[in-house]
Each structure stands twice: as C-alpha cells, then as structure tokens.
C-alpha cells in the first residue's frame, strides 16, 4: 500500500512535465496508476475476505506512537476499489473533457491524481493521525481543484467555502481523535474500534469526530459548501464531490459504528442530521434548473441517507449501508459525467434552455436513464437492491424494538425509516426531474444546437451505469466483501442482499415510494408553488456568509484600531507591558541578593559614570553623529569593563565590533541630513523620559532579583574539565565552537541572513558578486598588471580617468597642487580611482603597511583561539576591520582588489564548513557536532590541536568576514556609486558635480541639506516622479 501511495505521489510530481509533452493525452497515461492499484487491490481480495487484512507499518515518530500504518480490511478495500476504479475512469474522461490549450492543465492533472492517492491513503490509514493528515490533504486538494478556474470569482468563493468548512470540521475532528487516543492509549484506529473507549471521553471525542465527518460529507448545517463546489470542472464534481471525498465522512461513520454506535450521543447526531440532510437536500434538488446543482443537492440528500444507514449500527443496516455506498458512487459519478457531456455539447446546463437532447443523444440518454433509475431505486439496478435492504433493515430493527419493549433504539429505527422514506420519495421526484429536464423536448422550443462531441466521452459514464446494472445481478459475488465488514456489527446475520426477497414489507415500502414520487412529478406545479411559499429552510449558507463577513470586518477593524500608532506606539506598548508585568513581579519578589558590593574594583565607578553620562547625553543631543559617538563611548567603556573583569574575549570582540559599527554608521549617515528631524511635541519628550526611566529602574531591580535568585552553584564548575576534554584551554572559545556549537551555528546563520538582507536592501537589482574590480572600470584601457599588487604603482593618477578637469578654477586650488596630485605615486591599487582631493598619502601608506600584518594577526587569532583569547569571531572581525581600512583609504575599487571574492560565496562557504562539521560526524556514527582532533606542534603558534571544532571556527571566521565585506560593499561601495551617479545625473556640470558631491560629504550642514540629494538613478517608478519635482 505504501508502494502504491508512493507511486501516486511520484507520478503526480512529474505530471506537469508530462502534460507539457503530451497535452491532454496525459490523462490516460496517468490513469494507469489508479488502474494498476485497482488490479493490485483485487489480488488482495481473497485474503481480506478470509478475514486476514493486509497490514503495513513503518515506524515514524515512535515517541508519540505515530506510525505510517496502513490496514486494508473489507471496508477499506471496498472504499479503495471505489476510489481507484472511479478515479481511473474519471481521469480517462478528462481526456475528452479538456482541450489541449486548457490553462493550468498540468496542475489540474497532477492535483487530480494526487487526490486519488491521498484518498486511497485516507481509507487505508490505520493510524488516526495519518488518517487526519490525509483527511486535511483532501481538503486542501479539493480547494485547489474547485478553484481550478482561478480567474472566476465564483470558483474562488466556492473553493474557499469548501476549505473553510471542511478544515473547521477537520480541526474539531483532530481534537476528538486526540481525546480518543489519550483515553484509549493507542493511535491505531482498528484497536480503538475493537476495544472502544467508554465514558465521557468517548462521548466527547466521538461527537467531535462526527463533527468532522458531518462537515466533510456536507450534512446539515454544513451542506451548503457542496452545491457551491459545483463551480469546479465536472470531473472534479464527479470524483471528489460524488464518489470519493464526500464519502470520507461516511467512511468514518462506518468505521466507527462497530465500536461506538451504542453511545448516547451517536444516534441523535447521526440520525437526526442524516434525516434532516436527506429531506433538505431532496427538497432543494427538486427546484433546481441547473442540472449540476440538481445533482449536487441530490448528493447532499444521498449523503444524509448514507450516514443514517451506515451509522444505524446493526449487521443488516451496515450491509445495506455499504451496498448503498457502492451504488451511489456508481450512479452519481455517471450522472455528473453525463452533465459534463451535455454542458460541452449544448453549452449550458440550464435545462430551461435544453430541448430535444434525448433524440439526438440516444446513448447518453440511455446511460442517464439507467443511472438515474438506480438513484431513484428502481429495479433491476444496484440502487434498488441497496434501498430495499435499507428499508428492510430499518423496518426489522423497528419491529424488533417494539417486540423488545419499545426502547429508544426502536424509536430511532422508526425515525430513520420515516426520514428515509420521505427522502426517497423526493429522490424519485428529482431523478425524474433530471431526466425530463435534460432530455425531453420542450413544447414550442427549438431544439438546442449541439456540438458534436467525441463518442468516446460517453464510454466512462457508460461503464459506470453498466456497472450499476451488472452489479445488481452480481450481488451474490459482491456480498461477501460487504458482509465481511458488516460482520463487525451486532444483530441477526441471516440477512442477504438480493433483487427479489419475495413479498416482504420492504417491497411494499418501495412501491409506496415510487407511487408518491410519481405523484410529486405529476403535481410538480403545485410542488413548485409550495416550494416558493415555504421560506428556504436551513439556508445556512446565508449564515455562513454572515459569519465570515462579520469576522472579516472585525479582524479589519481590530487591526486598524490596534496598528495605527506607528513604530513608537508599538514600542511604547511593548515597554508598558514589560513595566507592568515584570514590574509587578519584582514588587512581589521576596528573594534579594545576599550581599551587595558597591563596586568590584575602584576604577569601575569612574568608568560607569562616564558611560552613564554618555548614555544620557546620547538621549538628548540632536546631531546624529554626536549621538553615535556618545553611544560608542558606552561601547568602548564596556571594552574596559570586560577587560578588567576577566573577560578578554569579550573585550577583544567588543572593541572590534564597536569600531566597525562606527564606520558603518558614518557610511550611512553621510547620506542623511545631519540634524535629526524632530516633530514630536514636548509632552511626548517628557512621557518618553518617564517611560524610559521607569523601564530602567525595573530593569535594575530585575538585575538584582536575578542575582538573588541564583542560589545553586553555577554549572561553570564542570566546564573546565569539559574544555580540557575538548582539547582547549580557552573555555569561552571551546564553548562557542564545541560545547554549545549548535547555538553558534544558529548565530552564524543569522549573520548570513543579515548580510543577505543588507545587500538586498541596497542593491536594487541582484546582490551577487563582490565589490567592483578595477577591471570593471570601462573607461580604463590599460591592462592591470597582477604584479601591481606587490609594489607601488608609478602611473599618474589621471591615467585612470583621463581627461580630468582641473579643480583649480572652482576650488581655489593651485594648478601645481592639482598636477602634483595627478602624478602622485599610488600606494594602493585603486588609489588612482579616487579624486586627488579625497586622497591622503599618510593613510594610504599606513593602510598599505598594516593591511597584511592585520590579516596575518587575524589568522593567528583564529588558530590560537582554542587556547588563548581570540577565535573565529575575533579573527573574522579583525580581518573585516582590515578591509574597512582598505575601503576607507582607497574607495570601493580598493575593496574589490583587497577582497576579490563574492561575499555571498564567503558566507556560503563559511556556513557550509560549520554545518558540514555538524553533520560530518554523523557519517562516522557520532552525534551531530561530535569533535575529533589531530594534535601537532607548530612553531610560533605552539601546540595546536586541529580538530573538527577548528574547522567549525574557520567557518565562523569566513561568515564574519563575509558579513563585513557585504556590509562594506553595500553600505560603502554601492552607496558611493549611487551618490556619484546621482551627482552626475543631477547636475549637467559634470566635473563640478563631483566637487559639490565631495563638499556634500565633508562640509557644513547648509550644503548637506541641499536638494541635490535626490537620487535620480533610482529605478523604482515610485521615486521617478518625485525626483522630477524635487530637482532644482
């Protein structure tokens, strides 16, 4: 069975590609899958009949006792045969139903095939959670299939209705299943039925499960989704909404009935809702003009009928129930397919516009009459056999109830019988309406023009209708399978299915039904008037629409009511909750720290005072840059605090991070106006101060409480031993790359995401690649000699971007200085790309001298990190800082030359290395991230034990370097480029603009706020309009 399911899944996956090649001829090809499974199922038939179900179990989540367990017993086999048999036929039918140019045909074919597989899984699953998974999968696939015509409103609306209703029921069912599993102690459906749960848990759980079954099988009050679902293509209606999916609810009732039919709640739910559904469905069907809707309401009615009889819970009723299930699948699928043919030929399904079809489509008409007669329960068809058995079983149960003293069982039997009879009368009437409506010639109407349709299209419904006829005579051969299921139920076992039972009461009931049905047909005008007079009962679709629209509105108004404050508002709410919640908790607290020291060492209060003043000042100054620098005072203060409190790793990392943060801030802030815009009223300022102050006090108290709460010794005591075991002396680093490496793996993943995010935000089109290289300069024609990397480059600066206009006129610079700049030797590779005014020989020389040592030191830090302060983070940050220096000295081309790699590749390699280390040990039978070492004495570095944790640390190093590189080339290089381009586009003055732009960067606020800041190079349409307006 698992193999069959896998075949469905695999073929469904390749179906879209197949469809591209084969067009609509893909359908017969994929129909092979359900057909083959049908054949396989037949080979299992003898075993199942012998009472030996096929069972397959693959453990999946043993901790939760969830397994991929499948069990093919008689009931499952019957359903599986219907699902695969009808499935194959419907797929074949699709070949003629669709044209090759049908949009999304591949998707449709794949979904339909997948649905057949999921349905097969549903009826064969033994694990209740597997059952639920398949159950929900059918809902989702049904949603996708109903919504096949994505462009049609009604298609979307119907799909969503079906999904909402069935998943609502599905969730209720999940809760019910969990209740049953918890009470029964097993997840196996067969065991839950064999040894039923009892008591309140059973009542509750079963009621919830029935809710799921009712919603899926479209019983009152959820019946409205099924007619709406007729917006789907006809094959979907025939398969999902007649033969397969809606039977899932019936299947579940039939499955549970042997164990739970005697619960107090069972009969009221099953019989009352079943009867109501049967009558409401039949009544509504009787007034439909649209043939498909007529059938849909008819299906609703029949589903009610099925639930009544399968849920009644005796041997005879179960036998009748499964017989009816089979009969219904055959005739209803056939009728739907016929409607599809009529729709195709005549272009309408509204029978008021159809006339004279019967004469011109005799074959189709015959098929329809046979199927509809089976639906009405006329002999000699399977529908008659089944209905006869239903009446007989209910009548016998009722009589037995009277003889047994008139218990509630007897009463329910009579209620069920009465409902079935009334429903059956309506069924006869609407069956007649269908046939008359579809095929008869209307007086005074022109015969409807017809397209010629392929005769093969009628083959599939023909087979189904013929099966209805043949099965009626072959009942003795089918009965063993049905009886094998019914045997699980109590009651006399001497009942048999047959076309002729002799002059039994059931025959009388049948005859009465036919007579009354005929009467309804005869008096149809009076019926129609009555229909109009009686207000539509149980029109719960209105209720559903009302509920949905109320929920929509409430959700929208709540959202707009809560989310209108902007970022400060949200933050204020969050902080208020923090103060209110944790503040209250701290007030109620009783444990305080044992002792309080004023300071750890005398320098601490002075450091702290400086940091506190800087923090408060940062909160009040208006200049962005000043605020940033003040914040960095607190950061560097932390460096000292860490350094003096025995945390050299923290001090090192904090110092490097703080430096990079400042640089990055400057890179961005140079483009923003200097003053921080302030539109807040002063009241808000006070409120902010108070909120901040209170939050700070609460946080301080929390800190004290947390210290007081630590009464147990820390786990730090065991860490040194662990570190030694991991071949490392620096416990912090060992923890990062070994003991808590999972954590670090998560962290560097965050860094990769952040780097990607930064690059994506800045690069409008495509983020891949490294910083720009010198070779990219299209106005450069001189070959770049690789050896240039190694020695100062003697070319004059102007050779790169000749001709360069002298700035002497505009900037008051002497020609001599300009000349000197243009002939200056370059210490950096890309120094020549900068304008002479932006270059500093001192910085170039310094960077030139320091870059390579810095890289060497960073690698040193990386490798000694296991035993001394350092490690991947610190090393990576130092290397990043070296790149920062190269960029600051030489611009973006310099960055490209310094790190001629794709930042994304660095990040990816780093993550791959770390994750590879994590998974690598799995291949050697170890736990993830388990370490192994290789020890060696290396000069200078001392004894190094190269282990997998070192590889992990190298991964961390690469990720950090990649992050810094990505940040630099985005916020540095790309922002430069955008700025230059803006300057070029914004001012036709060309060379002058460069000067202005440079002033912009470096000089006072009055220039910084010039409107030239508009970015004309923006490619988004949003801004192209606004730049036009903003240009001077």
């Amino acid at each position, binding site marked *: 069975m698992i193999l069959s399911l896998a075949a469905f899944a695999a073929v469904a996956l390749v179906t879209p590609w197949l469809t591209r090649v084969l067009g609509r001829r893909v359908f017969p090809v994929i129909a092979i899958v359900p057909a083959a499974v049908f054949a396989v199922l037949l080979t299992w038939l003898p075993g199942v009949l012998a009472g030996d179900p096929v069972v397959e179990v693959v453990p999946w989540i043993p901790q939760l006792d969830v397994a991929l367990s499948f069990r093919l017993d008689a009931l499952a086999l019957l359903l599986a045969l219907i699902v695969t048999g009808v499935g194959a036929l419907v797929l074949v039918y699709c070949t003629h139903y669709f044209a090759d140019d049908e949009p999304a045909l591949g998707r449709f074919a794949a979904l339909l095939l997948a649905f057949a597989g999921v349905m097969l899984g549903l009826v064969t699953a033994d694990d209740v959670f597997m059952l639920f998974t398949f159950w929900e999968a059918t809902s989702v696939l049904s949603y996708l299939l109903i919504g096949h015509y994505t462009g049609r409103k009604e298609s979307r609306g119907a799909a969503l209705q079906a999904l909402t209703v069935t998943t609502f029921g599905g969730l209720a069912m999940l809760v019910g299943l969990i209740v049953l599993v918890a009470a029964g102690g097993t997840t196996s459906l067969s065991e839950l039925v064999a040894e039923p749960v009892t008591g309140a848990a059973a009542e509750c759980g079963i009621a919830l499960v029935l809710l799921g079954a009712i919603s899926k099988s479209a019983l009152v009050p959820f019946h409205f989704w099924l007619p709406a679902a007729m917006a789907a293509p006809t094959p979907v209606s025939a398969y999902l909404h007649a033969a397969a999916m809606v039977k899932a609810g019936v299947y579940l009732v039939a499955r549970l009935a042997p164990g739970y039919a005697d619960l107090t709640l069972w009969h009221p739910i099953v019989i009352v809702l079943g009867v109501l559904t049967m009558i409401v469905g039949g009544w509504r069907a009787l007034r439909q003009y649209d043939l498909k809707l007529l059938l849909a309401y008819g299906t609703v009615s029949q589903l009610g009928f099925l639930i009544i009889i399968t849920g009644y819970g005796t041997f005879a009723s179960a036998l009748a129930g499964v017989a009816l299930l089979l009969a219904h699948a055959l005739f209803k699928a056939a009728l739907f397919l016929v409607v599809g043919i009529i729709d195709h030929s005549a272009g309408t399904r509204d029978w008021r516009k159809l006339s004279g079809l019967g004469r011109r489509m005799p074959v189709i008409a015959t098929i329809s009459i046979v199927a509809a007669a089976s639906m009405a329960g006329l002999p000699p068809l399977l529908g008659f056999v089944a209905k006869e058995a239903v009446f007989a079983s209910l009548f016998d149960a009722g009589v037995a109830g009277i003889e047994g003293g008139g218990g509630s069982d007897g009463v329910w039997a009579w209620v069920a019988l009465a409902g079935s009879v009334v429903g059956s009368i309506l069924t006869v009437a609407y069956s007649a309406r269908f046939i008359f409506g579809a095929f008869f010639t209307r007086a005074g109407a022109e015969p409807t023009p017809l397209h010629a349709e392929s005769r093969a299209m009628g083959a599939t419904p023909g087979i189904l209708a013929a099966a209805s006829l043949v099965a009626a005579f072959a009942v003795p051969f089918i009965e063993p399978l049905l009886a094998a299921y019914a045997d699980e139920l109590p009651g006399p076992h001497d009942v048999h299915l047959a076309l002729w039972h002799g002059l039994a009461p059931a025959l009388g009931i049948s005859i009465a039904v036919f007579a009354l049905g005929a009467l309804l047909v005869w008096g149809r005008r009076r019926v*129609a008037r009555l229909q109009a007079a009686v207000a539509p009962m149980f029109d719960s679709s209105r209720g559903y629409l009302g509920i949905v629209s109320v929920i929509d509105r409430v959700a929208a108004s709540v959202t707009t009511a809560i989310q209108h404050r902007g970022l400060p508002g949200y*933050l204020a709410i969050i902080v208020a909750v923090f103060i209110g919640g944790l503040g209250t908790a701290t007030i109620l607290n009783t444990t305080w720290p044992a002792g309080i020291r004023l300071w750890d060492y005398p320098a601490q209060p002075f450091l702290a005072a400086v940091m*506190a003043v800087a923090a408060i000042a940062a909160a009040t100054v208006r200049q962005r840059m000043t605020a940033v620098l003040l914040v960095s005072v607190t950061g560097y203060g932390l460096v000292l605090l860490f350094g003096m*409190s025995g945390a050299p790793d923290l001090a090192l990392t904090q110092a490097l991070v703080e430096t*990079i943060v400042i640089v990055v801030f400057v890179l961005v802030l140079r483009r923003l106006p200097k003053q921080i815009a302030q539109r807040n009223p002063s009241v808000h300022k006070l409120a902010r101060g108070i909120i901040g102050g209170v939050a*700070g006090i609460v946080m301080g108290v929390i800190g004290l409480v947390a210290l007081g709460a630590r009464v147990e010794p820390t786990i730090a005591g065991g860490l040194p031993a662990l570190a030694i075991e991991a071949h490392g002396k620096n416990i912090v680093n060992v923890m990062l790359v070994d003991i808590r490496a999972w954590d670090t793996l998560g962290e560097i993943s965050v*860094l990769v995401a952040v780097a990607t995010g930064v690059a994506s935000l800045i690069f409008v089109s495509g983020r891949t690649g490294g910083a720009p290289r010198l070779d990219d300069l299209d106005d450069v024609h001189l070959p770049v000699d690789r050896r240039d990397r190694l020695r100062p480059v003697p070319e004059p600066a102007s050779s790169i971007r000749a001709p360069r206009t002298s700035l002497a006129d505009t900037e008051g610079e002497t020609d001599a200085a300009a000349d000197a700049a243009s002939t200056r030797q370059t210490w950096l590779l890309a120094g020549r790309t900068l304008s002479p005014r932006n270059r500093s020989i001192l910085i170039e020389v310094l960077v030139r001298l320091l870059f390579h040592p810095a890289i060497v030191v960073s690698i040193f830090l990386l490798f000694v990190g296991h035993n001394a302060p350092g490690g991947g983070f610190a090393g990576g940050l130092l290397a990043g800082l070296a790149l920062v220096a190269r960029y600051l000295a030489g611009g973006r081309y310099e960055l490209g030359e310094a790190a001629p790699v794709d930042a994304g590749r660095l990040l990816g390699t780093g993550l791959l290395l770390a994750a590879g280390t994590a998974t690598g040990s799995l291949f050697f039978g170890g736990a993830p991230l388990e370490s192994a070492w290789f020890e060696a004495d290396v000069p200078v570095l001392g004894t190094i034990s190269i282990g997998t944790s070192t590889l992990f640390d190298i991964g961390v190093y690469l990720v950090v370097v990649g992050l810094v590189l990505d940040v630099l080339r985005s916020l540095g290089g790309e922002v430069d480029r955008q700025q230059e381009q803006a300057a070029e586009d914004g001012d036709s003055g060309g060379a002058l603009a460069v000067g202005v732009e440079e002033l912009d960067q470096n000089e006072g606020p009055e220039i910084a706020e010039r409107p030239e800041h508009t970015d004309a190079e923006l490619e988004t349409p949003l801004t192209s309009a606004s730049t036009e307006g903003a240009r001077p």
Partner: protein
Amino acid sequence: MTASLTLVVLMAVLFGAGISIMLERSLTRVLIGFLLVGNAVNILIFLMSGAPGLAPILSDGVEPDEISDPLPQVFVLTAIVINLGITAFMLALIYRSWWLAQLGSAGDLVDDEEELAEDAEEAADLIRSSAADDAAIQELIDASGEEADELVVQSPVADDEEVRR
C-alpha cells in the same frame, strides 16, 4: 551571589536612556536606542557571573575555581556579534527607507497617517474581494432556484431576467 551595585545602576541607566530614545520616531534614533539597550542587556548578562575572577583560560597555574564564570561570557560574545549584524541591517533599512521616501530633511521618518489610510484601504479591498467571491457563487446557486410564478408564466422575458440575475 553578590552583585556590584555600580554595574546594576549602569545597566539601568543605559537601559532607560536606550528605551527613551527608541520611542522617538526617527529610525536613526531608534537604532541608537537599540545599541544602548543592547549594551545594557550585555551588562545584565555579564552581571550574572558574580564576582569577577581570572580570565577563563586554563593556562598553567590557573585553578578552575579562580576564573570568572565563562557561561555568561559566551552568551555576551554571540550577542555582541549579532548586535553588529542587526545594526548593519537596520542601517541598510534606514538608508533604503530614506532613499525611497526622498523626504528631504524629514529623512527617515515614516508617515503614520498615510500608512493607516493605506492599511484600511487594503483591508477593505480584501473584504470586498472575498465578499465578491462569496456573492458570486451564491448568485450562481440562487439563479438555479425555481420560482413558482415562472412555472405559471413561462415567458422568455422571465427566463431572461432569471439569467441576468
């Protein structure tokens, strides 16, 4: 466990200052506040090591009970690096929003009222479209319902009306 009051107070001040800056509307200020809060939280975690000792590096002559608690240090170290990443990301956001908004001196402010109107419009659109979908299918179903008077007066006019409705 004993505490250094100095560090607790410093942490509270940094946290309070950070929160009050974060409540402003300028994204740059929010980021500055975020950095302060980040530093404050790092101090809070670091506080939990208790009294400082030697660096947690097991060189010769260092006894395990003399060193500082390394666990908070590990947390803080990752937090510092993550802070760097988040800062860079927020700066990119700020730059991007400024770039898109082109608000001149208004810079990195986000206009709440406009967003509110847009959100309301969006929500109303969603409701309208889902209601339209539902109405469409309902209409289709209603159209198929038989009315008594149509049976009596089966004129083409009535049919047409039915179709249109």
